Protein backbone atom coordinates (compact mmCIF):
# COMPACT_ATOMS: atom_id res chain seq x y z
CA UNK A 1 0.00 0.00 0.00
CA UNK A 2 1.33 3.44 -0.89
CA UNK A 3 1.85 6.09 1.74
CA UNK A 4 -1.07 8.16 0.46
CA UNK A 5 -3.38 5.15 0.58
CA UNK A 6 -2.29 4.37 4.13
CA UNK A 7 -3.05 7.93 5.19
CA UNK A 8 -6.38 7.80 3.36
CA UNK A 9 -7.22 4.57 5.16
CA UNK A 10 -6.45 6.12 8.56
CA UNK A 11 -8.52 9.19 7.67
CA UNK A 12 -11.50 6.99 6.79
CA UNK A 13 -11.21 5.27 10.16
CA UNK A 14 -10.94 8.59 11.95
CA UNK A 15 -13.99 9.88 10.10
CA UNK A 16 -16.01 6.85 11.23
CA UNK A 17 -14.94 7.23 14.83
CA UNK A 18 -15.67 10.96 14.83
CA UNK A 19 -19.11 10.34 13.36
CA UNK A 20 -19.82 7.75 16.05
CA UNK A 21 -18.75 10.23 18.71
CA UNK A 22 -20.81 12.97 17.05
CA UNK A 23 -17.85 15.29 16.34
CA UNK A 24 -17.73 17.19 13.04
CA UNK A 25 -14.19 17.08 11.67
CA UNK A 26 -15.05 17.22 7.94
CA UNK A 27 -13.14 20.47 7.32
CA UNK A 28 -10.06 19.23 9.14
CA UNK A 29 -10.14 15.94 7.24
CA UNK A 30 -10.45 17.71 3.91
CA UNK A 31 -7.44 19.88 4.75
CA UNK A 32 -5.37 16.81 5.52
CA UNK A 33 -6.56 15.02 2.37
CA UNK A 34 -5.63 18.07 0.24
CA UNK A 35 -2.21 18.17 1.79
CA UNK A 36 -1.65 14.46 1.11
CA UNK A 37 -2.79 14.90 -2.48
CA UNK A 38 -0.43 17.85 -2.99
CA UNK A 39 2.52 16.06 -1.44
CA UNK A 40 2.04 12.89 -3.46
CA UNK A 41 1.55 14.76 -6.75
CA UNK A 42 4.70 16.79 -6.00
CA UNK A 43 6.62 13.60 -5.32
CA UNK A 44 5.34 12.02 -8.54
CA UNK A 45 6.17 15.03 -10.69
CA UNK A 46 9.58 15.44 -9.09
CA UNK A 47 10.40 11.78 -9.73
CA UNK A 48 9.88 12.49 -13.44
CA UNK A 49 12.09 15.57 -13.29
CA UNK A 50 14.83 13.48 -11.70
CA UNK A 51 14.47 10.72 -14.29
CA UNK A 52 14.45 13.27 -17.13
CA UNK A 53 17.69 14.70 -15.74
CA UNK A 54 19.30 11.37 -14.88
CA UNK A 55 22.95 11.56 -16.02
CA UNK A 56 22.75 7.99 -17.34
CA UNK A 57 19.69 8.66 -19.45
CA UNK A 58 20.29 7.92 -23.14
CA UNK A 59 21.29 11.09 -24.97
CA UNK A 60 20.30 12.10 -28.47
CA UNK A 61 23.42 10.62 -30.07
CA UNK A 62 22.84 7.28 -28.27
CA UNK A 63 19.31 7.20 -29.60
CA UNK A 64 20.38 8.27 -33.09
CA UNK A 65 22.94 5.49 -33.35
CA UNK A 66 20.36 2.98 -32.12
CA UNK A 67 17.49 4.02 -34.42
CA UNK A 68 19.45 4.74 -37.60
CA UNK A 69 21.00 2.27 -40.02
CA UNK A 70 23.36 5.07 -41.02
CA UNK A 71 23.98 8.62 -39.83
CA UNK A 72 26.30 11.39 -40.96
CA UNK A 73 26.60 14.36 -38.63
CA UNK A 74 26.70 17.73 -40.38
CA UNK A 75 28.23 20.75 -38.69
CA UNK A 76 28.00 24.50 -38.61
CA UNK A 77 25.58 27.33 -39.28
CA UNK A 78 27.68 28.68 -42.21
CA UNK A 79 27.87 32.07 -40.49
CA UNK A 80 29.57 31.89 -37.16
CA UNK A 81 30.44 28.40 -36.03
CA UNK A 82 29.34 24.97 -34.97
CA UNK A 83 27.39 24.44 -31.79
CA UNK A 84 28.08 21.07 -30.17
CA UNK A 85 25.04 21.52 -27.90
CA UNK A 86 22.66 21.31 -30.86
CA UNK A 87 23.59 18.68 -33.38
CA UNK A 88 22.21 17.54 -36.71
CA UNK A 89 22.72 15.39 -39.71
CA UNK A 90 21.26 12.96 -42.19
CA UNK A 91 20.29 9.49 -41.11
CA UNK A 92 18.53 6.45 -42.50
CA UNK A 93 15.66 4.88 -40.59
CA UNK A 94 14.07 1.75 -42.05
CA UNK A 95 15.50 2.69 -45.43
CA UNK A 96 14.11 6.24 -45.30
CA UNK A 97 16.54 9.17 -45.38
CA UNK A 98 15.68 11.69 -42.67
CA UNK A 99 17.23 14.84 -41.26
CA UNK A 100 17.77 14.64 -37.52
CA UNK A 101 18.18 17.72 -35.32
CA UNK A 102 18.78 17.27 -31.61
CA UNK A 103 19.93 18.79 -28.34
CA UNK A 104 22.96 16.88 -27.15
CA UNK A 105 23.82 16.84 -23.47
CA UNK A 106 27.07 15.23 -22.41
CA UNK A 107 27.44 11.63 -21.31
CA UNK A 108 30.20 12.48 -18.86
CA UNK A 109 31.61 15.57 -17.20
CA UNK A 110 34.08 16.31 -20.00
CA UNK A 111 31.47 16.00 -22.72
CA UNK A 112 28.96 17.96 -20.66
CA UNK A 113 31.46 20.83 -20.51
CA UNK A 114 32.21 20.59 -24.22
CA UNK A 115 28.53 20.56 -25.09
CA UNK A 116 27.59 23.31 -22.65
CA UNK A 117 25.20 20.97 -20.88
CA UNK A 118 23.01 20.85 -23.97
CA UNK A 119 22.24 24.57 -23.79
CA UNK A 120 22.53 25.90 -27.31
CA UNK A 121 23.77 29.23 -28.60
CA UNK A 122 22.27 31.09 -31.58
CA UNK A 123 24.51 29.24 -34.03
CA UNK A 124 22.92 25.98 -32.88
CA UNK A 125 19.45 27.20 -33.81
CA UNK A 126 20.78 28.61 -37.07
CA UNK A 127 22.40 25.28 -37.91
CA UNK A 128 19.06 23.62 -37.14
CA UNK A 129 17.34 25.97 -39.58
CA UNK A 130 19.96 25.38 -42.26
CA UNK A 131 19.54 21.62 -41.97
CA UNK A 132 15.75 21.91 -41.86
CA UNK A 133 15.71 23.91 -45.09
CA UNK A 134 18.08 21.38 -46.63
CA UNK A 135 15.67 18.63 -45.58
CA UNK A 136 12.82 20.43 -47.30
CA UNK A 137 14.88 20.83 -50.47
CA UNK A 138 15.60 17.11 -50.64
CA UNK A 139 12.11 16.07 -49.50
CA UNK A 140 13.46 14.49 -46.34
CA UNK A 141 11.29 14.31 -43.24
CA UNK A 142 12.71 15.95 -40.11
CA UNK A 143 13.04 14.27 -36.72
CA UNK A 144 13.93 16.46 -33.74
CA UNK A 145 15.02 15.08 -30.37
CA UNK A 146 14.52 17.62 -27.60
CA UNK A 147 16.61 17.46 -24.44
CA UNK A 148 17.63 20.80 -22.99
CA UNK A 149 17.11 22.93 -19.91
CA UNK A 150 16.82 25.85 -22.31
CA UNK A 151 18.85 28.06 -24.59
CA UNK A 152 22.11 29.28 -23.09
CA UNK A 153 21.64 32.49 -21.08
CA UNK A 154 25.12 33.82 -21.76
CA UNK A 155 26.77 36.99 -22.96
CA UNK A 156 27.67 35.71 -26.42
CA UNK A 157 24.24 34.16 -26.93
CA UNK A 158 22.65 37.56 -26.37
CA UNK A 159 25.20 39.39 -28.52
CA UNK A 160 24.54 37.03 -31.39
CA UNK A 161 20.75 37.23 -31.04
CA UNK A 162 19.48 34.08 -29.38
CA UNK A 163 15.97 35.57 -29.35
CA UNK A 164 16.04 36.25 -33.08
CA UNK A 165 17.44 32.78 -33.82
CA UNK A 166 14.66 31.02 -31.91
CA UNK A 167 11.96 33.33 -33.29
CA UNK A 168 13.06 32.62 -36.85
CA UNK A 169 12.97 28.86 -36.25
CA UNK A 170 9.43 29.06 -34.89
CA UNK A 171 8.30 30.92 -37.98
CA UNK A 172 10.21 28.84 -40.51
CA UNK A 173 9.51 25.41 -39.00
CA UNK A 174 5.81 26.25 -39.13
CA UNK A 175 6.11 26.58 -42.92
CA UNK A 176 8.48 23.77 -43.96
CA UNK A 177 6.92 21.62 -46.66
CA UNK A 178 8.15 18.35 -45.21
CA UNK A 179 6.92 16.22 -42.29
CA UNK A 180 8.37 17.12 -38.87
CA UNK A 181 8.26 14.75 -35.89
CA UNK A 182 9.43 16.16 -32.55
CA UNK A 183 10.20 13.95 -29.55
CA UNK A 184 11.02 15.26 -26.08
CA UNK A 185 13.48 12.64 -24.84
CA UNK A 186 14.49 14.26 -21.55
CA UNK A 187 14.10 17.87 -20.52
CA UNK A 188 11.99 20.12 -22.71
CA UNK A 189 12.93 23.51 -21.34
CA UNK A 190 11.41 26.76 -22.52
CA UNK A 191 12.10 28.54 -25.81
CA UNK A 192 15.30 26.58 -26.14
CA UNK A 193 13.24 23.41 -26.58
CA UNK A 194 10.54 25.01 -28.69
CA UNK A 195 13.25 26.34 -31.04
CA UNK A 196 13.39 22.81 -32.49
CA UNK A 197 9.93 21.84 -31.25
CA UNK A 198 7.50 23.04 -33.91
CA UNK A 199 6.22 20.11 -35.97
CA UNK A 200 3.38 17.91 -37.17
CA UNK A 201 3.65 15.39 -34.35
CA UNK A 202 4.94 15.99 -30.84
CA UNK A 203 5.79 13.04 -28.61
CA UNK A 204 7.21 12.72 -25.15
CA UNK A 205 9.09 9.87 -23.60
CA UNK A 206 7.24 8.61 -20.52
CA UNK A 207 9.65 10.27 -18.08
CA UNK A 208 10.35 13.39 -20.10
CA UNK A 209 9.15 16.81 -18.93
CA UNK A 210 8.18 19.87 -20.95
CA UNK A 211 7.84 23.29 -19.36
CA UNK A 212 7.98 27.03 -19.92
CA UNK A 213 10.58 27.43 -17.17
CA UNK A 214 12.36 24.99 -14.85
CA UNK A 215 10.56 24.12 -11.60
CA UNK A 216 13.44 25.82 -9.77
CA UNK A 217 12.95 28.98 -11.85
CA UNK A 218 9.21 28.96 -11.25
CA UNK A 219 9.70 28.47 -7.53
CA UNK A 220 12.20 31.29 -7.18
CA UNK A 221 10.33 33.79 -9.38
CA UNK A 222 6.66 33.14 -8.65
CA UNK A 223 6.75 31.41 -5.28
CA UNK A 224 9.76 33.48 -4.14
CA UNK A 225 11.27 30.37 -2.60
CA UNK A 226 13.62 28.23 -4.66
CA UNK A 227 13.24 25.35 -2.21
CA UNK A 228 9.67 24.86 -3.43
CA UNK A 229 10.78 23.39 -6.76
CA UNK A 230 9.10 20.03 -6.08
CA UNK A 231 5.86 21.77 -5.33
CA UNK A 232 6.26 23.89 -8.48
CA UNK A 233 6.91 20.78 -10.60
CA UNK A 234 3.43 19.48 -9.77
CA UNK A 235 1.70 22.86 -10.10
CA UNK A 236 3.18 23.53 -13.54
CA UNK A 237 1.85 20.30 -15.14
CA UNK A 238 5.02 19.30 -16.92
CA UNK A 239 4.97 15.49 -17.04
CA UNK A 240 4.21 13.56 -20.22
CA UNK A 241 0.77 12.61 -18.85
CA UNK A 242 0.02 16.26 -18.06
CA UNK A 243 1.14 17.48 -21.48
CA UNK A 244 -0.90 14.78 -23.23
CA UNK A 245 -3.94 15.63 -21.14
CA UNK A 246 -3.49 19.30 -22.07
CA UNK A 247 -3.36 18.18 -25.73
CA UNK A 248 0.02 19.77 -26.35
CA UNK A 249 1.57 16.45 -27.40
CA UNK A 250 0.22 13.66 -29.58
CA UNK A 251 1.38 10.71 -27.54
CA UNK A 252 3.67 9.20 -24.96
CA UNK A 253 6.42 6.75 -25.84
CA UNK A 254 6.73 4.19 -23.04
CA UNK A 255 9.98 3.62 -21.18
CA UNK A 256 11.21 0.44 -19.52
CA UNK A 257 10.23 0.12 -15.84
CA UNK A 258 12.47 2.37 -13.75
CA UNK A 259 13.39 4.66 -16.64
CA UNK A 260 15.08 4.80 -20.05
CA UNK A 261 18.59 4.54 -18.56
CA UNK A 262 17.90 0.98 -17.37
CA UNK A 263 17.32 -0.23 -20.91
CA UNK A 264 18.39 2.30 -23.57
CA UNK A 265 17.97 -0.33 -26.30
CA UNK A 266 14.30 -0.92 -25.54
CA UNK A 267 13.75 2.84 -25.31
CA UNK A 268 15.31 3.42 -28.72
CA UNK A 269 13.31 0.57 -30.20
CA UNK A 270 10.08 2.15 -28.99
CA UNK A 271 11.13 5.52 -30.44
CA UNK A 272 12.05 3.93 -33.76
CA UNK A 273 8.68 2.19 -34.04
CA UNK A 274 6.78 5.44 -33.48
CA UNK A 275 8.93 7.27 -36.04
CA UNK A 276 8.48 4.60 -38.71
CA UNK A 277 4.73 4.46 -38.18
CA UNK A 278 4.42 8.26 -38.41
CA UNK A 279 6.70 8.56 -41.42
CA UNK A 280 4.45 6.13 -43.29
CA UNK A 281 1.47 8.20 -42.28
CA UNK A 282 2.91 11.68 -42.94
CA UNK A 283 5.12 11.18 -46.00
CA UNK A 284 2.34 10.47 -48.52
CA UNK A 285 0.46 13.60 -47.48
CA UNK A 286 0.34 16.67 -49.70
CA UNK A 287 2.95 19.04 -48.21
CA UNK A 288 0.69 22.08 -48.53
CA UNK A 289 -2.04 20.29 -46.59
CA UNK A 290 0.51 19.16 -44.01
CA UNK A 291 1.60 22.77 -43.44
CA UNK A 292 -2.00 23.92 -43.20
CA UNK A 293 -2.84 21.32 -40.56
CA UNK A 294 0.36 22.07 -38.66
CA UNK A 295 -0.54 25.75 -38.43
CA UNK A 296 -4.17 25.09 -37.58
CA UNK A 297 -2.99 22.98 -34.67
CA UNK A 298 -0.52 25.63 -33.47
CA UNK A 299 -3.17 28.36 -33.64
CA UNK A 300 -5.45 26.42 -31.30
CA UNK A 301 -3.07 26.47 -28.31
CA UNK A 302 -4.56 28.50 -25.47
CA UNK A 303 -7.63 28.70 -23.28
CA UNK A 304 -9.70 31.85 -23.14
CA UNK A 305 -13.24 33.14 -23.21
CA UNK A 306 -14.68 36.11 -25.06
CA UNK A 307 -17.91 36.59 -23.12
Amino acid at each position, binding site marked *: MSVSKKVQHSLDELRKKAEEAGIDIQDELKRIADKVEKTTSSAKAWKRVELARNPDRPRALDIISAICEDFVELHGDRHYGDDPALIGGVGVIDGIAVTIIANQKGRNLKETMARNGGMANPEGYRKALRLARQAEKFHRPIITLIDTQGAF*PGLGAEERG*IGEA*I*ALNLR*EFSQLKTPIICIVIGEGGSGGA*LGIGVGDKIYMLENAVYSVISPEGYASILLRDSSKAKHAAAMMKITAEDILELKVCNGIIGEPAGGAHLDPKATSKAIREVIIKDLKDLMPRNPAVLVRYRNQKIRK*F*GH*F*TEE
Partner: protein
Amino acid sequence: MSSTAAIDSIACPACKSSIDAHSLRLNLNVCPSCQYHFRMEAPDRVEYLADKDSFVEFYRNMKSLNPISMDGYEEKLFEAVQKSRLTEAVLTGTCTIDGIPIALAIMSFSFMGGSMGSVVGEKITRAIMIGVEKKCPVVIYATSGGARMQEGIFSLMQMAKTASAAAELDRAGLPLFLVLCDPTTGGVTASFAMLGDIIIAEPGALIGFAGPRVIEGTIKQSLPEGFQRAEFQLEKGFVDVICPRGEQRALLVRLLKMHGFTGQDKEGKR
Protein backbone atom coordinates in the same frame (compact mmCIF):
# COMPACT_ATOMS: atom_id res chain seq x y z
CA MET B 1 1.90 56.30 -16.53
CA SER B 2 -0.80 55.40 -14.09
CA SER B 3 1.15 56.78 -11.16
CA THR B 4 1.53 60.24 -12.65
CA ALA B 5 -2.00 61.29 -11.79
CA ALA B 6 -1.48 60.99 -8.07
CA ILE B 7 1.99 62.45 -7.79
CA ASP B 8 2.68 66.04 -8.73
CA SER B 9 6.36 65.81 -9.47
CA ILE B 10 8.47 62.90 -10.59
CA ALA B 11 12.21 62.45 -10.35
CA CYS B 12 13.83 61.34 -13.59
CA PRO B 13 15.76 58.14 -12.84
CA ALA B 14 18.41 59.11 -15.39
CA CYS B 15 19.19 62.82 -14.78
CA LYS B 16 17.47 63.14 -11.38
CA SER B 17 15.72 66.34 -12.45
CA SER B 18 12.28 66.93 -11.08
CA ILE B 19 9.51 66.88 -13.68
CA ASP B 20 5.93 67.84 -12.99
CA ALA B 21 3.48 65.11 -13.91
CA HIS B 22 1.50 67.21 -16.35
CA SER B 23 4.46 68.25 -18.48
CA LEU B 24 5.80 64.71 -18.44
CA ARG B 25 2.51 63.52 -19.86
CA LEU B 26 2.47 66.27 -22.47
CA ASN B 27 5.98 65.21 -23.44
CA LEU B 28 4.82 61.61 -24.05
CA ASN B 29 6.44 60.40 -20.82
CA VAL B 30 9.87 61.48 -21.98
CA CYS B 31 12.07 63.51 -19.63
CA PRO B 32 12.30 67.04 -21.09
CA SER B 33 15.85 67.48 -19.79
CA CYS B 34 17.60 64.22 -20.74
CA GLN B 35 15.14 62.43 -23.05
CA TYR B 36 14.87 59.44 -20.72
CA HIS B 37 11.89 57.38 -21.89
CA PHE B 38 9.55 56.45 -19.07
CA ARG B 39 7.24 53.51 -19.71
CA MET B 40 3.94 54.31 -21.36
CA GLU B 41 0.55 52.67 -21.13
CA ALA B 42 -1.13 51.21 -24.21
CA PRO B 43 -4.13 53.60 -24.22
CA ASP B 44 -1.74 56.58 -24.11
CA ARG B 45 0.19 55.21 -27.05
CA VAL B 46 -3.03 54.75 -29.01
CA GLU B 47 -3.92 58.37 -28.30
CA TYR B 48 -0.53 59.46 -29.63
CA LEU B 49 -0.43 57.19 -32.70
CA ALA B 50 -3.94 56.84 -34.04
CA ASP B 51 -5.81 59.49 -36.00
CA LYS B 52 -8.42 61.07 -33.76
CA ASP B 53 -11.38 58.74 -33.12
CA SER B 54 -10.08 56.19 -35.61
CA PHE B 55 -9.13 53.47 -33.13
CA VAL B 56 -11.58 50.60 -32.82
CA GLU B 57 -10.67 48.16 -30.08
CA PHE B 58 -11.17 44.45 -30.74
CA TYR B 59 -11.31 41.47 -28.37
CA ARG B 60 -11.44 43.64 -25.26
CA ASN B 61 -13.40 41.01 -23.33
CA MET B 62 -11.05 38.13 -24.01
CA LYS B 63 -10.09 36.53 -20.70
CA SER B 64 -7.78 33.71 -19.73
CA LEU B 65 -9.44 30.53 -18.48
CA ASN B 66 -6.56 29.56 -16.18
CA PRO B 67 -5.62 26.61 -18.42
CA ILE B 68 -3.56 24.66 -15.88
CA SER B 69 -5.72 25.62 -12.87
CA MET B 70 -2.87 27.49 -11.22
CA ASP B 71 -3.55 28.52 -7.62
CA GLY B 72 -3.91 32.25 -7.22
CA TYR B 73 -3.77 33.10 -10.94
CA GLU B 74 -7.38 34.26 -11.24
CA GLU B 75 -6.94 36.56 -8.23
CA LYS B 76 -3.76 37.94 -9.76
CA LEU B 77 -5.55 38.66 -13.06
CA PHE B 78 -8.45 40.30 -11.25
CA GLU B 79 -6.03 42.50 -9.34
CA ALA B 80 -4.22 43.48 -12.55
CA VAL B 81 -7.50 44.50 -14.17
CA GLN B 82 -8.52 46.51 -11.09
CA LYS B 83 -5.22 48.36 -10.98
CA SER B 84 -5.23 49.38 -14.65
CA ARG B 85 -7.36 50.71 -17.46
CA LEU B 86 -6.72 47.43 -19.24
CA THR B 87 -8.27 43.99 -19.52
CA GLU B 88 -5.03 42.25 -20.51
CA ALA B 89 -1.39 42.99 -21.29
CA VAL B 90 -2.14 43.88 -24.90
CA LEU B 91 -4.61 46.23 -26.54
CA THR B 92 -5.59 45.31 -30.10
CA GLY B 93 -7.64 46.92 -32.82
CA THR B 94 -7.61 48.87 -36.02
CA CYS B 95 -7.03 52.54 -36.67
CA THR B 96 -5.77 54.93 -39.27
CA ILE B 97 -2.50 56.73 -38.96
CA ASP B 98 -2.26 59.77 -41.22
CA GLY B 99 -5.25 58.26 -43.00
CA ILE B 100 -3.57 54.88 -43.56
CA PRO B 101 -5.52 51.92 -42.18
CA ILE B 102 -3.47 49.59 -40.00
CA ALA B 103 -3.96 46.74 -37.55
CA LEU B 104 -2.48 47.69 -34.20
CA ALA B 105 -1.41 45.78 -31.09
CA ILE B 106 0.13 47.60 -28.14
CA MET B 107 1.42 45.89 -25.04
CA SER B 108 1.51 47.30 -21.51
CA PHE B 109 4.24 46.28 -19.10
CA SER B 110 2.18 47.35 -16.12
CA PHE B 111 -0.27 44.47 -16.66
CA MET B 112 1.48 41.45 -15.09
CA GLY B 113 4.80 42.49 -16.56
CA GLY B 114 3.42 42.38 -20.09
CA SER B 115 3.58 38.61 -19.85
CA MET B 116 2.26 36.52 -22.74
CA GLY B 117 -0.35 33.90 -21.96
CA SER B 118 -3.26 32.54 -24.00
CA VAL B 119 -4.96 35.91 -24.34
CA VAL B 120 -1.90 37.96 -25.30
CA GLY B 121 -0.86 35.26 -27.79
CA GLU B 122 -4.33 35.06 -29.28
CA LYS B 123 -4.82 38.83 -29.51
CA ILE B 124 -1.41 39.33 -31.16
CA THR B 125 -2.22 36.48 -33.56
CA ARG B 126 -5.59 37.98 -34.41
CA ALA B 127 -4.13 41.46 -34.88
CA ILE B 128 -1.72 39.97 -37.41
CA MET B 129 -4.60 38.10 -39.07
CA ILE B 130 -6.56 41.36 -39.38
CA GLY B 131 -3.64 42.48 -41.52
CA VAL B 132 -3.94 39.35 -43.68
CA GLU B 133 -7.71 39.70 -44.05
CA LYS B 134 -7.87 43.44 -44.62
CA LYS B 135 -4.62 43.50 -46.60
CA CYS B 136 -3.27 46.18 -44.31
CA PRO B 137 0.05 46.61 -42.49
CA VAL B 138 0.40 45.45 -38.89
CA VAL B 139 2.12 47.57 -36.24
CA ILE B 140 2.99 46.02 -32.89
CA TYR B 141 4.41 47.79 -29.85
CA ALA B 142 6.09 45.12 -27.73
CA THR B 143 7.01 45.27 -24.07
CA SER B 144 7.12 42.15 -21.96
CA GLY B 145 8.98 40.25 -19.31
CA GLY B 146 8.29 37.06 -21.25
CA ALA B 147 5.91 34.14 -20.97
CA ARG B 148 2.99 34.15 -18.50
CA MET B 149 4.35 31.32 -16.39
CA GLN B 150 1.04 30.82 -14.58
CA GLU B 151 -0.27 29.33 -17.83
CA GLY B 152 2.50 26.74 -17.98
CA ILE B 153 3.09 25.06 -21.33
CA PHE B 154 0.35 27.13 -22.97
CA SER B 155 2.33 30.31 -22.43
CA LEU B 156 5.27 28.68 -24.25
CA MET B 157 3.03 27.65 -27.13
CA GLN B 158 1.95 31.26 -27.70
CA MET B 159 5.42 31.83 -29.10
CA ALA B 160 4.77 29.25 -31.83
CA LYS B 161 1.29 30.65 -32.41
CA THR B 162 2.33 34.27 -32.94
CA ALA B 163 5.25 33.15 -35.14
CA SER B 164 2.86 31.08 -37.26
CA ALA B 165 0.68 34.15 -37.76
CA ALA B 166 3.73 36.23 -38.70
CA ALA B 167 4.54 33.61 -41.34
CA GLU B 168 1.09 33.98 -42.82
CA LEU B 169 1.48 37.76 -43.03
CA ASP B 170 4.81 37.15 -44.74
CA ARG B 171 3.21 34.92 -47.33
CA ALA B 172 0.56 37.56 -47.95
CA GLY B 173 3.37 40.05 -48.65
CA LEU B 174 2.23 42.48 -45.99
CA PRO B 175 4.48 44.44 -43.63
CA LEU B 176 4.92 43.74 -39.94
CA PHE B 177 6.46 46.68 -38.11
CA LEU B 178 7.65 46.22 -34.54
CA VAL B 179 8.43 48.90 -32.01
CA LEU B 180 10.35 47.44 -29.08
CA CYS B 181 9.86 49.25 -25.77
CA ASP B 182 11.49 48.90 -22.39
CA PRO B 183 11.71 46.04 -21.56
CA THR B 184 11.22 43.41 -24.26
CA THR B 185 12.56 40.06 -23.10
CA GLY B 186 11.95 36.33 -22.92
CA GLY B 187 9.37 34.56 -25.01
CA VAL B 188 8.15 37.74 -26.67
CA THR B 189 11.64 38.55 -27.94
CA ALA B 190 12.04 34.94 -29.08
CA SER B 191 8.85 35.08 -31.14
CA PHE B 192 6.91 37.85 -32.89
CA ALA B 193 8.99 40.75 -31.54
CA MET B 194 12.03 39.64 -33.56
CA LEU B 195 9.99 38.82 -36.66
CA GLY B 196 9.24 42.36 -37.79
CA ASP B 197 10.16 43.28 -41.36
CA ILE B 198 11.30 46.47 -39.71
CA ILE B 199 12.24 46.59 -36.05
CA ILE B 200 12.22 49.99 -34.38
CA ALA B 201 13.36 50.43 -30.78
CA GLU B 202 12.77 53.16 -28.22
CA PRO B 203 15.99 54.74 -26.92
CA GLY B 204 17.45 52.91 -23.95
CA ALA B 205 14.98 50.03 -24.10
CA LEU B 206 16.21 46.75 -22.65
CA ILE B 207 15.89 44.13 -25.37
CA GLY B 208 17.02 40.54 -24.98
CA PHE B 209 16.08 36.94 -24.46
CA ALA B 210 17.49 36.06 -21.05
CA GLY B 211 17.05 38.71 -18.38
CA PRO B 212 20.17 40.51 -17.12
CA ARG B 213 20.02 38.86 -13.70
CA VAL B 214 19.80 35.38 -15.22
CA ILE B 215 22.85 36.11 -17.40
CA GLU B 216 24.77 37.50 -14.44
CA GLY B 217 23.91 34.33 -12.56
CA THR B 218 25.32 32.25 -15.43
CA ILE B 219 28.55 34.16 -16.04
CA LYS B 220 29.05 35.06 -12.36
CA GLN B 221 30.00 38.64 -13.10
CA SER B 222 28.13 41.88 -13.65
CA LEU B 223 27.16 42.90 -17.15
CA PRO B 224 28.87 45.70 -19.05
CA GLU B 225 27.15 49.10 -19.11
CA GLY B 226 24.49 49.31 -21.81
CA PHE B 227 24.32 45.56 -22.36
CA GLN B 228 21.08 44.55 -24.13
CA ARG B 229 19.99 48.15 -24.48
CA ALA B 230 18.47 49.36 -27.77
CA GLU B 231 21.77 51.01 -28.78
CA PHE B 232 23.62 47.72 -28.16
CA GLN B 233 21.07 45.79 -30.22
CA LEU B 234 21.43 48.31 -33.05
CA GLU B 235 25.19 47.82 -32.99
CA LYS B 236 24.78 44.03 -32.95
CA GLY B 237 22.40 44.16 -35.88
CA PHE B 238 19.11 43.15 -34.31
CA VAL B 239 17.33 46.49 -34.50
CA ASP B 240 16.82 48.55 -37.68
CA VAL B 241 16.45 51.97 -36.16
CA ILE B 242 16.23 53.67 -32.79
CA CYS B 243 13.52 56.27 -32.76
CA PRO B 244 12.54 58.66 -29.96
CA ARG B 245 8.90 58.42 -28.98
CA GLY B 246 7.91 61.80 -30.33
CA GLU B 247 9.18 60.92 -33.81
CA GLN B 248 7.75 57.41 -34.04
CA ARG B 249 4.46 58.37 -35.60
CA ALA B 250 6.13 60.30 -38.41
CA LEU B 251 8.60 57.47 -39.00
CA LEU B 252 5.84 54.86 -39.18
CA VAL B 253 3.91 57.01 -41.67
CA ARG B 254 6.99 57.43 -43.89
CA LEU B 255 7.65 53.70 -43.81
CA LEU B 256 4.01 52.81 -44.49
CA LYS B 257 4.05 55.09 -47.53
CA MET B 258 7.31 53.58 -48.76
CA HIS B 259 5.57 50.22 -48.64
CA GLY B 260 2.82 51.49 -50.90
CA PHE B 261 0.16 52.31 -48.35
CA THR B 262 -1.53 55.66 -48.59
CA GLY B 263 -4.43 57.37 -46.90
CA GLN B 264 -6.37 57.74 -50.15
CA ASP B 265 -6.22 54.09 -51.19
CA LYS B 266 -7.72 52.36 -48.22
CA GLU B 267 -7.06 48.87 -49.55
CA GLY B 268 -3.37 49.67 -49.85
CA LYS B 269 -1.51 49.53 -53.14
CA ARG B 270 0.70 46.52 -53.58
